């Protein structure tokens, strides 16, 4: 990820395209997200993660929490109404759409102010 000149000047936001994530394995995606977040960046994923990847993201986040260093993450996504409507056959055939804009940031810097089905409003503080 490209670095800003001096991170103390502000908050870095990484917008990661679906195309970039497509070529990565689950663990590579999780590493990319957590490395960014642990550096104090806000990571925005164009297409989000699959439920299985979300479950692993929580698990890996937990193993990395360390007192006075890293408290974990805040994560917000739009509700995945498309996926909830998918039929069982679609899900078995892998046609389920899990695409959903996802915002992830360090728990001590990001606070969700408002969220509904088509708007996420977050307050981000500097490190």
């Amino acid at each position, binding site marked *: 990820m490209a670095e800003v000149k001096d991170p103390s000047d502000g908050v870095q936001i990484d917008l990661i395209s679906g195309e970039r994530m497509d070529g990565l394995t689950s663990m590579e995606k999780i590493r990319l997200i957590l490395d960014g977040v642990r550096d104090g960046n806000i990571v925005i994923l164009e297409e989000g993660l699959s439920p299985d990847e979300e479950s692993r993201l929580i*698990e890996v986040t937990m193993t990395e929490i360390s*007192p006075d260093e890293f*408290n974990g993450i805040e994560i917000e996504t739009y509700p995945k109404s498309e996926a909830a409507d998918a039929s069982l056959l679609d899900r078995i055939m892998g046609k389920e759409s899990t695409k959903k804009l996802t915002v992830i940031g360090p728990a001590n810097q990001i606070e969700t102010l408002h969220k509904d089905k088509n708007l996420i409003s977050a307050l981000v503080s500097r490190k």
Partner: protein
Amino acid sequence: MGLLTNLKDSISRAAASLFSEEDPKRIGIYGPPNAGKTTLANRIARDWTGDAVGPESHVPHETRRARRKENVEIERDGKKVTIDIVDTPGVTTKVDYTEFLEHDMEKDDAVRRSREATEGVAEAMHWLREDVDGVIYVLDSSTDPFTQVNTMLIGIIESQDLPVLILANKIDLEDSSVQRIRNAYPQHETIPLSALEGDNMDEVYDKIAEYFG
């Protein structure tokens, strides 16, 4: 001939293990911290086995290890349903030890508790992916159910095609709203209860038998 007989035997053994009524289903009790999961697990265990599962507390992350109570036999309409109850630590995406300091804890104890809590959440996620056959999702009906952790967890459970029963706990509290939970997760049936007071447990047991029997 021998080969055919062996094949038949292994198919029937596989079918027996798939559909055996003897094997208790492992039902994970999931939900955010302080939803009343252990209170519910203890209520079910006490009602049907006489023993408790673990200590309850108002301090978040009291349960920091998944705890299993085996062979809980629930009787409904003359039919017995046997389940293993797995009480899991409350799932979250963040743990800050300084929050425990507010509960009159020394720093060393708070740090230890937060470390155990993070291990417990990781363990709970692992159980969900590998080791449970169904889920009871417990929510505190006096708080907003439409949180990211709840949405994510329910999405993860749905993606695994596990049967899930949503319980709206703490209906004894003044701010309780069962409808708020029904609106947040309309794709699932929501059963109101107070695990602490034992309110509406009959319906809870009926539904456990229906969903996991």
